[in-house]
């Protein structure tokens, strides 16, 4: 299986989970998610992943360490996320990894690359703060790469 087709299978798995979550009115527990897409989920397991409620909105984040195609959903709607590289400083050759989204488009949030850190969650919370009483639309899931 090529990388691309593996990713496609993976994406379909994630979509199936999303449909299930929507059908149950967002009250998906982590165990029911696991049952729905067990193979894909276990392949994706990353200790930085999260699923919780923040300011009344369900935020869910899944990291993609291999390809940087991280996935964030807010109230079940997909947020377009892009991973970018930024210079540490003009005097350093080092770069760091950050994430931006279709909603916080000009505010890169550093993505901690070690386990159990919360860069992607910070991004999701900034987006919730910005949304206020709004929800994401279909155009929030803009294809970045």
């Amino acid at each position, binding site marked *: 299986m090529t990388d691309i087709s593996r990713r496609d299978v993976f994406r379909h798995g994630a979509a199936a989970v999303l449909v299930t979550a929507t059908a149950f009115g967002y009250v998906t527990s982590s165990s029911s998610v696991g049952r729905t897409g067990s193979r894909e989920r276990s392949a994706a397991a990353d200790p930085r992943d999260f699923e919780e409620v923040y300011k009344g909105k369900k935020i869910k984040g899944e990291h993609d360490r291999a390809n940087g195609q991280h996935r964030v959903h807010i109230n079940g709607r997909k947020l377009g996320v892009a991973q970018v590289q930024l210079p540490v400083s003009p005097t350093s050759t080092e770069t760091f990894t950050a994430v931006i989204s279709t909603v916080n488009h*000009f505010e890169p949030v550093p993505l901690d690359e070690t386990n159990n850190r919360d860069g992607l969650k910070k991004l999701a919370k900034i987006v919730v703060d910005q949304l*206020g009483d709004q929800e994401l639309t279909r155009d929030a899931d803009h294809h970045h790469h």
Partner: protein
Amino acid sequence: MGTRKNAAALTAAEKSNFVAAVKALKAQTTGRNYDWFVRVHMNYFGTVDGHNYAHMSPSFLPWHRQFLLELENALKGFNPAVDLPYWNWTANRSTTGAPFTSDFMGGNGSGGNGSVTSGPFAGAANWRINVSATSSTSLRRAMAQRGSLPTASDVDGVMSVSTYDVSPWSSASRSGMRNRLEGGLAPDLHGRVHNWIGGHMAQIDSPNDPVFFLHHCNIDRLWSRWQTSRGFDAGRYAPGGNVSNVVDVNETLAPFGTTVSSTLDHRGTYTYA
């Protein structure tokens, strides 16, 4: 040939003419109407055909120059006297002063994070948001909560950088004028102004806020200022050629169909006052 003026120096008639032309373009139902510009900005945020045309690349400046020019030409179709104004945020730093007055761009969002309540773009009946990552149908701003406005010395520092851009020609470029102007490197003259206005201006659909065009007009003016001291010729853009997946000086800027080199010397089309 047009003269692009400081928004703070516009007459009442110039302001109302600009607003009327923008609203006419919004009301147009076919062709390249206002929402077409919003959609194009969204579509060209990321990689298209392997190229980052619009953002996080050397072509950030020429792409937005052409984007603005196409919008300005569309406005001139309604009123040939209209030119894009620029918002000089090093001088006009108030949420209630120019250009955020009720006779022009209007003010802040209600409660600091909601719909704009004053001016010609307040409320969905006056200015309906149709194409957006978020569900509000009225224009939103959340001014001065995040981001900040650059100072004149921030601008001078960027203007003093003589190299246009450097490899890897992206947000990761650790030198060059372009990344400092765009925002991958401090002092970030462009991105943090989007964040300072907030609301739609912070989003991928930022052209929904007409102040987008005043901000980017100022960014274009600063590039022009840099070119005035260093040259409008193709040698002052980089890369010159043969860098795959980066828009070289003789490559075409999608979706406009013009080359980077044709955008460099704008002085036959418009100048800045």
